[in-house]
């Protein structure tokens, strides 16, 4: 996950507040799920304007989280326009990030349990 996710800057912004971070991870996943669904619809409807807006919004939150590779994919998708290939790459990378974030949540819940 090294290249996919760098949470150092994110931890600094949240002051390492793990409860807040979990809430933000959930918010990130919800926004991405909804955004990816919108991108699917944009491709079907060939709506390039909405594609660009949606990709831009996802790019902003991905970069702020530290999802570097996802942010880069979205940056490319913003300039190159919509395509199945681009959406496929975004979904694959998002799956990686989401699984990692979920595993972090599980790990934190587990460590709290041990305590």
């Amino acid at each position: 996950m090294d290249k996919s996710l760098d949470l150092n800057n994110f931890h600094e912004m949240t002051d390492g507040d793990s409860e807040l971070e979990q809430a933000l991870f959930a918010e990130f996943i919800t926004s991405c799920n909804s955004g990816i669904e919108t991108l699917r619809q944009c491709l079907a409807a060939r709506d390039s304007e909405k594609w660009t807006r949606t990709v831009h919004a996802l790019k902003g939150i991905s970069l702020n989280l530290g999802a570097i590779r996802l942010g880069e994919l979205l940056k490319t998708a913003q300039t190159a326009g919509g395509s199945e290939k681009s959406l496929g790459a975004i979904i694959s990378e998002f799956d990686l990030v989401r699984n990692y974030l979920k595993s972090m949540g599980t790990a934190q819940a587990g460590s709290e349990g041990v305590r």
Partner: protein
Amino acid sequence: MLLDIVDDNPGDRLLTFVERARTSGVDWNALHVPCSGLPHALRQANVQTTAKAALGGYPYALYFFQDGDIVILWNGPQGVALDAMLQGLTGHFGAQVRSFAICYNLRADSSGFRKLCERKIAAQSSNQITTFRAAAQDRKRRQQPQILIVEDQAFSSRLLLTMLERNYKTSLATDAEAALAIYLKMAPDIVLLDIELPGINGDEFVGMLTKLDPDAYVVMVSANAWLENVTRSKKNGAKGFIAKPYSKQKILDSVHMFVRTRMPMAGALHG
């Protein structure tokens, strides 16, 4: 709230709604009935009754402006619904309604209607200038800056709030119309403004704010930190530009910069 939303099916502010209607791929129509030239004011109750009878089968919304004008929006075909609406209004307010009313299809051509909305919102804002002037006077006496965040993404707004609200009085708006209402009421010292907003975008909004308030201190925040965007923001009156991804330091630096340049006494006190 700038506009009195009586029947808020779209559940949103007018310009924000217009932009969403334009891009939704669904046919929304807007009927603007100016009150000027009519023998008596368009009474809300009569308009509501008429709209319910004429548009009952479609989602619709009514907006009543402070100058008496009304806008009726509905999601459905224009022809029959428009005729029924005009007939109902004529019954209440006289035949002149037909001469003054203008109907727009938001999908086919939203720009004319959007301009109308912008004029209405600007006019209503001017009614709130007295409140704003008092708040702006109070601003001069503040020891700590008050900050307004304008960001429609929940993830990003929560992150910004987290970094700022521990030390500063901070407000949040998710679109420009809500931000304007807060600005006029509170005269914040600093506005952190996202560019890509629903409805009026950040570029348009910074222009509006600097015209309204020459002392406005607006810092743009965007993931599109292209030279063209930065130059345009400065031209529109923004005092700074923060690119996403930002850091805590960058955000706090923008506040410290304000304190150093606009609140020198507070800056000295706080080191």
